[in-house]
């Protein structure tokens, strides 16, 4: 007996940033008549302004397409778009879990990148059928056969049928659709069984409450159904079900194998965690969908309003952001230098930048973000273990018995030409080599254990620059290791500015202190007073720079009409300083607090 879900294909697209995922998605939507070319002109899937600017996907998206294949039958193709950055690796894994197949996009001139590789391995772990596509064949530098070989050598996939494509020119699109229909298996699952669906994304909508993006594996979701979330056993009633095609439209049920949205009067996005299983009250499924975990922030920074009056607005904005972002955390923090603010937690630096930009753009707040810190484990002399996410919280050195820091296992993928540079960078960042494999004649895969704190500090940018953009990085948390770390403090005119403190390895502390003093000198503008910048470890000053006071400004006449012009100039200058924080007698621009991220080696 033919099952009701045999015509469904659930797939995602795996691609490195810039390899053309969004353009390909647009072509698929066009070819299936889901959207018109005009609608697709603004790449449809990346619908967040920030995402479009950065060319990456932050939130998962889905779209349902109807495709009449060459066999004359109609198929429902669900494209599940995955986030595209290493910060969101867990979300990627959950999106992949919702699919049976994946289209792997490889750039015809760039070849396979580490990020892609990591996602391909994840896809293979989920037993997805992978359809390789060689994109951008219209470029003069395209090397289709070379890339085909590379896919076979590097990934171990059969690339004989890899589709030569130009998403930009619309070449190869139908072949891709046909291969999806032919090769991606239809979903299994019994619509009559007990309900088992996983949440692979969720967000807060001010009209409907929490919206959950789900994949049903067993059973059927229907309105009025009582459902239960496996992790916290909370119960809700289904209000609405829908699919995106590409705009949201209601449906009366979602059966095993289908993908769609569920609205069930969930008020808090933290109740609808990505990866959690939905089942039904009264007839729960035996086992939850495997692989659920609560994602925890890896990187923390202080966020302070430049104007103390904005504190309440900042809190409101953070509350709103958290509604939509279960990985983001915040709690109140007080800094002697910056006053009242919040300690925020992020998945990684990209996530941090996104949050920061949204706060400034969408909520129009002028903020100071302090240098990111990882979570250290401190064992004090009493034997007590404590986790600290801010240099300011580090106990005095004489009370510390053991200090541990998080270590990442980093997978780096680059060209053989750049191996020396990449290894040097990893060594400089206190890395320990675990593996080095040449793949073919041109590529190398390097595995290093590197402290997270070292990766946080512009490692990725450095990697790109030492490899002329070719190397890529993927990582996972390995664990904690003891390290000889010290707190580096900075003083401006003799006053310690707690928000500038960083924790660094003792071996690097003098160099970092000098570099940071130099960087602070660059970014702190000349002011009325000379500004002495000092780096200190404990009571010992290890580096010093001076920002000279400026010598004069306008010793001109001031009569009659001069008065208005001069006053307006002063008002303008004062307005310009609004993005500076005055600490003691020193005006510090926002970028000074992130100077630690910008130090050139």
């Amino acid at each position, binding site marked *: 007996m033919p099952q009701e879900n045999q015509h469904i294909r659930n797939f995602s697209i795996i691609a490195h940033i810039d390899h053309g995922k969004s353009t390909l998605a647009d072509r698929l939507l066009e070819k299936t008549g889901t959207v018109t070319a005009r609608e697709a002109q603004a790449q449809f899937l990346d619908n967040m302004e920030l995402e479009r600017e950065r060319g990456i996907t932050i939130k998962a998206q889905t779209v349902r397409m109807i495709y009449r294949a060459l066999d004359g039958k109609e198929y429902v193709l669900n494209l599940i778009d995955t986030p595209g950055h290493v910060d969101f690796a867990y979300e990627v894994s959950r999106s992949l879990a919702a699919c049976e197949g994946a289209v792997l996009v490889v750039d015809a001139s760039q070849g396979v990148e580490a990020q892609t590789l990591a996602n391909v391995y994840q896809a293979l772990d989920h037993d997805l059928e992978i359809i390789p596509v060689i994109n951008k064949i219209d470029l003069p530098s395209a090397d289709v056969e070379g890339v085909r070989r590379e896919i076979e050598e590097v990934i171990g996939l059969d690339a004989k049928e890899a589709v030569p494509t130009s998403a930009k020119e619309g070449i190869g699109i139908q072949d891709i659709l046909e291969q999806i229909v032919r090769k991606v298996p239809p979903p299994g699952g019994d619509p009559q069984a007990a309900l088992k669906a996983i949440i692979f994304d969720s967000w807060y909508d001010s009209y409907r409450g929490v919206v959950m993006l789900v994949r049903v594996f067993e059973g059927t979701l229907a309105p009025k159904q009582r459902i239960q979330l496996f992790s916290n056993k909370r119960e809700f009633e289904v209000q609405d079900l829908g699919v995106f095609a590409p705009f949201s439209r209601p449906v009366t049920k979602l059966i095993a194998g289908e993908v769609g949205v569920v609205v069930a009067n969930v008020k808090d996005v933290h109740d609808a965690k990505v990866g959690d299983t939905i089942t039904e009250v009264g007839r729960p499924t035996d086992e939850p969908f495997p692989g659920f975990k609560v994602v925890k922030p890896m990187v923390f920074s202080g966020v302070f309003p430049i104007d103390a009056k904005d504190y309440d607005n900042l809190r409101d904005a953070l509350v709103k952001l958290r509604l939509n972002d279960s990985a983001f955390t915040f709690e109140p923090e007080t800094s002697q230098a910056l006053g009242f603010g919040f300690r925020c937690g992020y998945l990684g630096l990209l996530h941090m930048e996104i949050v920061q930009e949204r706060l400034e753009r969408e909520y129009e707040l002028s903020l100071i973000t302090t240098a990111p810190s990882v979570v250290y484990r401190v064992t004090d002399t009493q034997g007590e273990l404590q986790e600290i996410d801010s240099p300011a919280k580090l106990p005095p050195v004489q009370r510390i018995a053991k200090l541990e820091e998080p270590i990442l296992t980093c997978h780096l993928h680059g060209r053989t030409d750049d191996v020396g540079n990449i290894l040097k960078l990893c060594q400089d960042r206190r890395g320990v080599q675990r593996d080095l494999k040449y793949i073919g004649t041109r590529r190398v895969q390097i595995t290093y254990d590197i402290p997270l704190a070292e990766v946080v500090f512009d490692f990725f940018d450095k990697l790109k620059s030492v490899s002329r953009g070719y190397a890529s990085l993927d990582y996972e948390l390995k664990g904690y290791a003891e390290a000889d770390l010290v707190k580096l403090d900075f003083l401006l005119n003799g006053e310690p500015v707690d928000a500038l403190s960083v924790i660094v390895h003792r071996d690097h502390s003098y160099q970092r202190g000098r570099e940071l003093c130099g960087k602070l000198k660059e970014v702190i503008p000349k002011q009325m007073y000379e500004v002495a910048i000092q780096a200190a470890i404990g009571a010992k000053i290890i580096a010093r720079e001076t920002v000279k006071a400026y010598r004069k400004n*306008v010793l001109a006449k*001031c009569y*009659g009409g001069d008065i208005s012009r001069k006053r307006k100039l002063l008002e303008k200058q004062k307005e310009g300083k609004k993005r500076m924080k005055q600490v003691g007698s020193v005006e510090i621009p926002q970028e000074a607090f992130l100077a630690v991220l910008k130090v050139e080696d």
Partner: protein
Amino acid sequence: MSARPFGVYVHFPYCAVHCPYCDFAVSTERVIPQERYTRAVLVELALRAPSFAGLEPRSLYLGGGTPSLWDAERVADVVTAVRARFRLPADAEVTLEANPESCEPARLAAYRGAGVNRFSVGVQSFDPGVLAKLGRRHGPEAAERAIRAAAAVLPNVAVDLIYGARRSTVATARSDAERLAGLPVAHVSAYALTLDPEVLAEEVPLARLRRQGRLPLPSDDEVVAQARAVRAALRRAGIRRYEISNFARAGFESVHNRIYWASESYLGLGVGAFGCRYEEGREAALRWGNHRAPAAYLATVEAGRLPTAEEERLGARELVEERLMLALRTRGGLPLSELPPSKRSEADALVRGRLAVLREDRLVLTARGMEVHSAVVERLLP
């Protein structure tokens, strides 16, 4: 309680040549319409005078332009009219700006006869190189002769100097100040050449050259050193600084200019002149500027209308800002009672940093503080 004071400024826009650093309203028409312009100024006086009723006049200042090109009889008409209109006291300060080229003894005596009791001579420098680069036509000897001629007519002679110009050095600045100190001069205004577009009324030719990168000027450090040299030389001669750019022998401080720095009202008459009238209670004020083009000015006034080209209403905030900005330019400083209360700690920091001192409950900038006056004021703005 005595009425609040005000000063009268009359602008005479005509010049033989337009100096390339000057942003005042200037016209270089070949034939100066002496009668017509004078009539217009008198009409404007009649139009504007009523709004200054109740205030007490203190000074009259004839600036330019080159008011020493104004016929003495016409100047007499203006001085007489202002005196009559406002009952200006007999000993009130009446200044006329004079160019060195027009300082012939007979002419100066005629101005004295017209009621002028103070001359301000635009010397700028005694260095031929600096003068040439400033576009001035007189040489050092003419400047010295002019000062002596003015002093022979009136005891109260003021002189303008410019430093920080092309070719200016610490040596030229010092020698200019020393040379002045040896002359019968009661008052000196010493200005750093200012080509900053935001404080100029229009882009003057030197500012344009500067913008185009074609005018190398001394560095800020060098300009500060020149200013210090000027100050030191004047101080040695007993000419004391009483405002950022102004110095005087005791008792010869400019009455008129102190009206601006004390945030009092002033009536501006003539092309491009500015006036400002504080309301009773001083919670608000109106500042206006006249047409800068003589043709527009004359036509408007002759049609019986006010020649106002721009107008600005100043509220409490603007007045506080200006008060801070202007009072801190002066040796008297700002009464602490007028400092925004939230800025008290800022003022203490200025004192600790030696940019200011507290003197009899007033915040007074030190010499170092005056060099960075803008930055100091910006910190104190509410």
